[in-house]
Every structure is written in structure tokens, then in C-alpha cells.
């Protein structure tokens, strides 16, 4: 009786394990494919000018080793001399033949076909690329502009969306539901439909080529974040609000003393999304910012590309520096982040 009960269970367990192994294999293949570009960015950012254009591609940057002989830099070779492998410097070329010198003992000279030898290389990381990239364009200025947009945009979004979400979550008024549906409907509206008149408006009030068009609208709330916060506020018990009213608390005080302190995870989620969006955005800065002193990092990187397209190592060093902050935010706030995607994704 007992054995017949465990047998199918065991084969089921085995099938499940097989399933997991196949799953892991596929996941690994996919993860390798996803990682290759990332690794390539890191690897390229540490290369020298020659290594970055080398084919076949080098994953770990290597460079030929040179030694100094008579004040001249000579490449070091591994080359067979009389059947014995030697490490010698190529001093002079005579057609296909090279004069090789032992760097330890310069009196020792050999003649051998250059093609028989192999250049000695060593791993070399060009950490200075990051400094060179920073010096090649005013990235500090771009970073400052981006940070201004990130900081004020986040403040604006948090303030306005909290107020609006509180209004929609806690107050009954004629037309309120209808207005909420209207708010949700704006998600479907392609931004291009409002883009041109908004652009003209900002041009008219001389905000073109300033950071204002990227900051001020955040103070007027947006559908995604209002929705996310409203859902969260609605899940908070109303009893506390009512108790506070009896204690003589105003609506402001309920929002500030009761709702907000309970909503830190939701507010943090909104803040993280806003920061990330502002840091990464390219489209709006491209439209509103013209002169380089007002550029954001995204625009600066694109401008850098126009000038340094041939210098992939500097380009990738600059790109990597722009990639690191959002990746760090993602790592440290992963839980909040994924919850946010899911709330706006599934229930929206």
C-alpha cells in the first residue's frame, strides 16, 4: 500500500526536477544573451583606442607590451630561435626579417622572420577613459541640469499627485467619479496630440531653451502616479481619518499626519519612477533644450556621440557613467520598483 502511494509521487518529483533543469538552461541562455551587451559596454569603456576597434573583438582588453631600447619603444615578441622559445624585442625590421634583441642583454641580437613571432600582450584597463570622457564635454553642466530636473520634477510630482490622489480617494463630490475617469483616459492620449500647442505656449512665454517646460508641468499631477497613490490611499482604513476629525483635525492635517506617514512605500515608488524617468528622458529635452549649456545628460551623450563616434571607448565610458545611477537605484529599491510596475501594470 505504502510503496504504491510513493511511487507516482517520486516520478512526479523527478518530472518536476527535469522541468526545472530545462527551465534553468533556457533562462541561462537568455541571461547570457541579455548580459553580452552590458559586458560589452563595461569592457569597451576600459579599452584603449586600438583595442576598441580590434577584430575579432576583445572581451578583456589586452595591449602589446613595449620595451625601451636606445630611447625607442619596441614591441616585445615571443619567437622561436634555434628551436627555443625566447622573449625578445623587435628592434628593427628588414623587410620580412626582423632584428630581435634581448632586452635584458642588448648585445644579444638575432635575425628571424617577424611572422614567426607573436606579440606579447598584457591585460590593460584604461581607467583614465572616464576622466577623458568627462573632460571632453561639459558633463558636469549636463549632470547639474539633469539633477535640477530630477529633484524639482520629483518634488512637483510628489506634492501634486499626493494632493490630487487624496482628493480622489477620500472626497465625495458631484462629478468626482467622472473626473477620475477623465484622468484615467488621459493615459491613452498620445503626447504628440498636445505637443505642438504646448511647445508654442512655452515658446511664447520665453520658456523655450530653459528647464521650466521640463519641471513646471510636474506640479500639475499626472494620471499614472495619481492612480497609483489613490489605490494606496483607498487601502488605508478610514477609521483613523474619522477619529482625527473628531479630535478636531483639518483635512490638511489628516493628509499630513495620517495618510502620508502610512504611505511611504507608495510615495517612494512614485519618487523612484519619477527620478528614473527624468534621468533617462530624451524626447522632451530634445524638443525644449537648444543650447548646450542647458542640455541634460541624455542630450549631452547624444551630442558627444556626434563628435566622438569613432572613439567607442570614450563613448562607452560616458554611457556607462550615465547608466550607473539608474541601475544603482534599481538595485537598492528593487522591491518598491517591481511593486510599482505591477500596480500600474495589472490593475491599470
Amino acid at each position, binding site marked *: 500500500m505504502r510503496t504504491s502511494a510513493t511511487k507516482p509521487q517520486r516520478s512526479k518529483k523527478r518530472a518536476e526536477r527535469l522541468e526545472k533543469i530545462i527551465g534553468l538552461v533556457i533562462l541561462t541562455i537568455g541571461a547570457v544573451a541579455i548580459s553580452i551587451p552590458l559586458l560589452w559596454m563595461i569592457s569597451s569603456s576600459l579599452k584603449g583606442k586600438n583595442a576598441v576597434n*580590434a577584430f*575579432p573583438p576583445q572581451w578583456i582588453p589586452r595591449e602589446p607590451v613595449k620595451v625601451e631600447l636606445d630611447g625607442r619603444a619596441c614591441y616585445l615578441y615571443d619567437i622561436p630561435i634555434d628551436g627555443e622559445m625566447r622573449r625578445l624585442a623587435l628592434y628593427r625590421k628588414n623587410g620580412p626579417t626582423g632584428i630581435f634583441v634581448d632586452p635584458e642583454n642588448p648585445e644579444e641580437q638575432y635575425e628571424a622572420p617577424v611572422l614567426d613571432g607573436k606579440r606579447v600582450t598584457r591585460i590593460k584597463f584604461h581607467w583614465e577613459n572616464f576622466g577623458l570622457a568627462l573632460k571632453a564635454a561639459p558633463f558636469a553642466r549636463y549632470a547639474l541640469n539633469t539633477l535640477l530636473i530630477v529633484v524639482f520634477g520629483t518634488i512637483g510630482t510628489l506634492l501634486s499627485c499626493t494632493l490630487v490622489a487624496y*482628493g480622489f480617494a477620500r472626497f465625495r463630490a458631484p462629478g468626482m467619479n467622472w473626473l477620475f475617469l477623465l484622468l484615467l483616459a488621459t493615459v491613452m492620449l498620445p503626447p504628440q*496630440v498636445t505637443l505642438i500647442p*504646448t511647445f508654442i505656449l512655452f515658446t511664447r512665454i520665453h520658456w523655450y531653451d530653459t528647464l521650466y517646460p521640463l519641471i513646471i508641468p510636474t506640479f*500639475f499631477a499626472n494620471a499614472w502616479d495619481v492612480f497609483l497613490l489613490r489605490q494606496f490611499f483607498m487601502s488605508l482604513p478610514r477609521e483613523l481619518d474619522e477619529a482625527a476629525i473628531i479630535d478636531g483635525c483639518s483635512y490638511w492635517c489628516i493628509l499630513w499626519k495620517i495618510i502620508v506617514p502610512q504611505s511611504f512605500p507608495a510615495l517612494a515608488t512614485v519618487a523612484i519612477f519619477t527620478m528614473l524617468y527624468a534621468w533617462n528622458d530624451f524626447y522632451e529635452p530634445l524638443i525644449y533644450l537648444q543650447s548646450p549649456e542647458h542640455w541634460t545628460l541624455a542630450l549631452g551623450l547624444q551630442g558627444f556621440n556626434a563628435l566622438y563616434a569613432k572613439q567607442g571607448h570614450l563613448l562607452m565610458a560616458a554611457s556607462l557613467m550615465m547608466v550607473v545611477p539608474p541601475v544603482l537605484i534599481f538595485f537598492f529599491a528593487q522591491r518598491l520598483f517591481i511593486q510599482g510596475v505591477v500596480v500600474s501594470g495589472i490593475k491599470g
Partner: protein
Amino acid sequence: MFKSISLRRRESLWGYFFISPWVIGFIIFTAGPMLASLVLSLTHYDIASSPIFVGFDNYVKLFTGDPKFWHALRVTMTYAFIAIPLNLIFGFLVAYLLNLRVPGVAFWRTIYYLPSVMPGVATALLWGLLFNPRIGVINWLLSLVGIKGPGWLASPQWALPALILMSLWGVGGGMIIYLAGLQGIPTSLYEAAQIDGANRWQQLTRITLPLMSPVIFYNLVTGIIGTFQYFTDAYVLTGGGPVDATLFYNLYLYKQAFTYRNMGYASALAWVLFVIVLVFTLLVFKSSDLWVYYEGEMRG
């Protein structure tokens, strides 16, 4: 009685007060500009001089005298019909595998989602290097299996496929949402099915896919809307070329508005875009009756 009415009114007024930032913003940045762009779409306007009313000229020109409009539409639709299903299938596959309770779910999830948090310009520049026909990693990988890789972004035939391939790097964006959906399906359903003798495939097609259909539906709708916003990669990598091979709709609109300063014509393009997106979304919504399953329907 009077007191309670006035309390009600007080509450209403406070409610309106709290949502007023959005209402004001809606008027200034949404409703007003929508009306304005509808009016502008009936004019010739270059900002420098005042708009000239031309009736439906822009729309007539768009549909009958502008091959680039049709071309941009074709490019965008081609991308949508290939990239969206591919991303859907791969995103779902990864989420499904992660949901088999494999070890290290958080680790895998992080790797797959990472590209989705990176700035578009940086990733575009990176892919520009990867796609380099001469020294790029992709053609090197192809050469390892004996294939001579194409010119990718420099080739009119291969530029759009290159951008589609690149879009798969962002497969983690959909995956996260699918994974959350899968984790929300009660395990008791699978247990019951197993007792009834259902195999894995039957569980997938009879339980998982029907229950996931609203999530798939959501990703489909946002995918369509997203394709019509597609901009950064094409702008940075190809500028719409070579020979307009990657002239996406949004890129064409941008060029009309900000390169040629045809604000009226660009407004018409924007409204046509709006209608197209609306029609597609409605089509998906309508068809959803056929394939999207909502919990609670069973009881009805």
C-alpha cells in the same frame, strides 16, 4: 438638516480643492492644447508668421500627396506586428520559466529587467557599436557559425530588423508584469487540475493562458501605443535612414514639426496618429470579448 447639507458642500469644496492641481493642469496642458492642435491642423503655420487657415488641405495632402506618411505608417506597423508578438512570447516564456519555482528568481528577474531601467540614449549608442558591420560583436558571433553578417543599421533592408532585434533586449519589461500575474494564480487550481489528470500543456492552455489573458491584453494595448511613440533608438541610431528605412511615424512627425517647422501639418499628423491608436485600441478591446477571460464571468 441644513447643517448636514453644508457639511456635504464643505466636503465637496475641499475635494475640488485637492484635485485642482490636476484640473488646472488638464485645462492648460491637455484640453487646451488638444483643441489648439485640432485648429492648428487646419492651418499652415511656421511659428514665425501667423497661421493661415487652409481648411482640410493638410489632411488631403497627407492621404493623397505624401508618400512619406504612408511609408512611415508602414514602417511603424511592420515593427508593431513583429516586435510586439516577439516581445510578448519571449516575455511570457521567461516569466513562465521563473514561475516554475526555479532557484534564484530574484537574480534572474534582476538580469532580465536591468536593460529596462537604462537610459535610452546610452543603450542606443551601445547597440550602435554591437551592430557595427565590420567590428561589431553581433557580426563576430555570426561569423563564428559561418554566417557573413549584414550591414545592419547601414543597410536599408536590415536596419528595421536590427531595431526589432534590439527591442528584444527590453523583454524584461513585459516579463515583470507577466510574472506578477502568474504568481497571482492560485495554486489550488493547478492542484485540482492535476488530480483530474491534466498534463502541463493542458494546465497551460486551460488555466494559465485564460487567467493571464487580461494581462496579455494590457501588454498588447500598451505595446501598440508604445510603438507609435517609438523615437529615441531610431533618432539616435539611424535618424530615420538609410533611405527612410526606419522612418517611424513619431520620427516623421518630429521632423515635420521641429526640422521643417510645419506646425500645422505636424498637428494633422498628430491627430491622425491619435485616431489610428484609438482605432487599434478599440479593435483590441472589441476582440477581447473573444479571448480575454475575466474572473467572475464564470458565475454569470
